[in-house]
């Protein structure tokens, strides 16, 4: 059947559909095929493995000097981020990118801003071994684990064998898979509760679609399922100013292709209200800033304040409930709170 469809559909049908879309109003084309999906409960994971993953996630001893844990930068208590422009790593080193949130990260089709990790397991190893972040090594991590009888017990219980790198990342990933924030107002609205969104938010939703934000921020994660270049309509980096950062090249660092320059993974907008600052370089401090910039560089639009207001209101409706598995939260505060 793929062979059949290899032939381009006739111009007439394309024309017809486009005219229909244009004339009938973009709204109908969208609402009949709603681009968002409500979050569903994640797959139930083994309770022992989740407990182990949480312990590892919150454990700063895994870093070189025992000061940086996963939750130092992806703080479960504060929206899964550390609210810093760039995170602080081992020894106070400043990182290259803004920390994305760990909540709903399982919905992302790749991990990291440049999509270099295919899975959560792959991503979990990154910060551990990154000299700027946890500056650790597997030997050190396994040593810490072996030295803690609680870890030994948990590993035996969860996997039936002693710890090794694959199992450590597996446990962390399984824990992260449970961090799905359900029951956001949008989700409730999608599931039929017409009172879940305020009228402002509904206007914002419509605007979101009309403007075309929907073309990249769509799907279950409201983003997170494609790569896109930043600065389609206008040069983002010029607009931003400042020194070029290492992370500015985007996916080019991974593929080495010119067409991947400034291409990033489209971030998920879920819980965006609580993950300031925004963009890979943390250059947008507020949602209003982010929305304005995005509209300008991606859509080539200058939004009116009213538009911005309703869009931001809509974006705030994407905040879901913190799942029970995130608890207990770490009792220690992150090492480098701002």
């Amino acid at each position: 059947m793929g062979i059949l469809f290899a032939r381009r559909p006739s111009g007439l049908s394309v024309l017809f559909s486009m005219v229909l879309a244009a004339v009938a109003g973009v709204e109908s084309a969208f609402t009949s095929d709603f681009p968002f999906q409500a979050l569903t409960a994640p797959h139930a994971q083994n309770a022992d493995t989740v407990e182990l993953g949480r312990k590892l996630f919150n454990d700063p001893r895994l870093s070189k000097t025992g000061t940086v844990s996963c939750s130092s930068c992806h703080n479960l208590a504060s929206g899964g981020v550390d609210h810093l422009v760039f995170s602080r790593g081992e020894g106070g080193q400043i990182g290259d990118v803004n920390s994305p949130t760990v909540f709903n990260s399982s919905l992302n089709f790749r991990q990291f801003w440049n999509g270099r990790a295919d899975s959560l397991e792959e991503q979990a190893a990154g910060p551990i071994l990154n000299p700027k972040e946890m500056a650790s090594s597997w030997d050190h991590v396994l040593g810490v684990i072996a030295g803690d009888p609680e870890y030994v017990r948990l590993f035996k219980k969860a996997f039936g064998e002693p710890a090794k790198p694959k199992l450590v990342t597996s446990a962390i990933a399984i824990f992260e898979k449970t961090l799905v924030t359900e029951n956001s107002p949008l989700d409730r609205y999608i599931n039929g509760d017409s009172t879940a969104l305020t009228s402002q938010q509904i206007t914002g939703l419509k605007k979101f679609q009309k403007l075309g934000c929907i073309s990249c921020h769509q799907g279950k994660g409201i983003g997170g399922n494609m790569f896109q270049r930043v600065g389609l309509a206008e040069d983002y980096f010029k607009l931003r100013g400042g020194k070029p950062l290492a992370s500015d090249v985007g996916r080019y660092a991974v593929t080495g292709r010119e067409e991947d320059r400034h291409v990033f993974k489209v971030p998920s907008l879920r819980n965006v209200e609580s993950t300031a600052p925004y963009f890979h370089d943390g250059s947008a401090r507020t949602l209003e800033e982010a929305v304005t910039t995005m509209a300008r560089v991606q859509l080539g639009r200058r939004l009116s304040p009213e538009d911005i207001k309703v869009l931001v209101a809509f974006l705030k409706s994407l905040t879901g409930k913190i799942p029970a598995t995130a608890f207990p939260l770490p009792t220690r505060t992150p090492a480098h709170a701002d």
Partner: protein
Amino acid sequence: MQTKFRFSRLKIILIGAALLATIGAVMLMKDLQNEQTTHQATVTDFLTARHYNHLLNETVLRSRTFLTDDYDSLVSISGDLSLYCTEGPTPTNPNGTFDAGRWPDVMNAREKFCEALRKKLDSVERFKSANSILKNALHYLPELIAQTRDPVIRSVSTSGFNLLLRYAADPMSSEIRDEFESFLRQTRPDRRSVLQAEAAMHLQTGAKALQARGAAEADVFHPRVEDAILKLQSTYFRHDNERAQGSSRGRAFLVLACAFLGLITVGTFLKIHRDSLLLADLNLDLESKVKVILAECDRAEKANLAKSVFLANMSHELRTPMHGILSFARFGQQKIETATKERLKSYFDEIYESGFRLMALLNDVLDLSKLESGKIEYSPKANDLSETVRLVTSEMCAFSTEMGLRVEMLTHLPVFASFDNMRIMQVVRNILSNAIKFSERGSVVEIKIEKIANGTASCRVTNRGVGIPDSELESIFEKFIQSSKTKSGAGGTGLGLAICREIIHQHGGKIWAESGPTGETHFTFELPETPVESHRKAA
């Protein structure tokens, strides 16, 4: 019997061959089924992979033609397809174990598949990117047209939009592309109209995105992934087919060989069976022959023993009269001067007596020997048995009178039979003399001669005397056997009846003794009317 046997043998062979063929067929089917099951598993896997590939293509197309953003499903299908790089089916043997021999080929094919898939998924990403940009442009332009009141911008935007649409419909057309590009050149951003500039920008962006999308699409629909899956599939199945072919050929051959062997085996067994039956028959034959020979041996032994006994007896019998002769002769020699004439005469009498006895014994022995060796020549003629008996009776008249007996013939009618006169006279003489010897004084010896069934002549001599105990009726006909009731000194060698029996048997007749109800003894012999060449009958 022979035909029946042959038919059943054929039936057995056919049944045997059919059975073996069935077993072979079942084995073959089972093996093929095993391979079939392995087949089925891998076919389904590859069908699924190809299905995902098609699904990916379709979803891409749907994203393009209906401008829906089904990127989540694109991601999900891509993920499913990618699993075949890491979790594809491994080659297995029919018995389910990992087939290491095929693994390198399969790995190669799988790597090529993964490479092709990587390229495809990359193109899908580029498609997504370009598609979303194009969609923005296409949505922005109508918005702009709707918003603006400026007729120039309106018309420009409309024509631009239309051109873009046409270009979108036919991105490969160089005419439209040229037209579009010239249009774009005309609508260069103008400081006076921001909207116009925006419109132009969107048109350009849209056009670029369209091109990029077209290129990405072409790569997405490149058949390399489908080809790679088919190649991977064939890598599995080529070996399976080869093995299945080889094995099914091999197994067919095996079945045929088994059937052939089976036929041979069945035939061999049947032959063995038949041979064993034959052997049993021969065995029985042999056994009976051996029995006969053993019996002969037995008899030969008995004869030997009898001869030894005979010799032993004979030597005694011979010696006794010899002693008599010698001792009386010596007496005579010694006492020739002194003994009286009467005394000397008694010595000579004794010598004569012993000599006579010795002569009789020797005659009898010789006779019997001759009879037994079959060297006697008979001249059987039709003779009158009555006459023969009368002759013998008158011969023994003096003897019978001496013993105070009377010998009486009950019938005088002639009875003809075929016999050797001399020999039968011998027989009658013997029997009669026995009868006389063993009769009570004053009794009568009766002889009855008659013709009985088949023209057989029968002669019966009856006497009253001490009789013969029932237990000895048979044995008296044995050599040297005399009745236990024999008075000591009654004389006789014990061979008489044996000789009689021999003679009678050689005439083909019968002879026997029996006791009557009132204590009399009957001796009867029968002679056939015509001579019968009969071998010595068993005793």
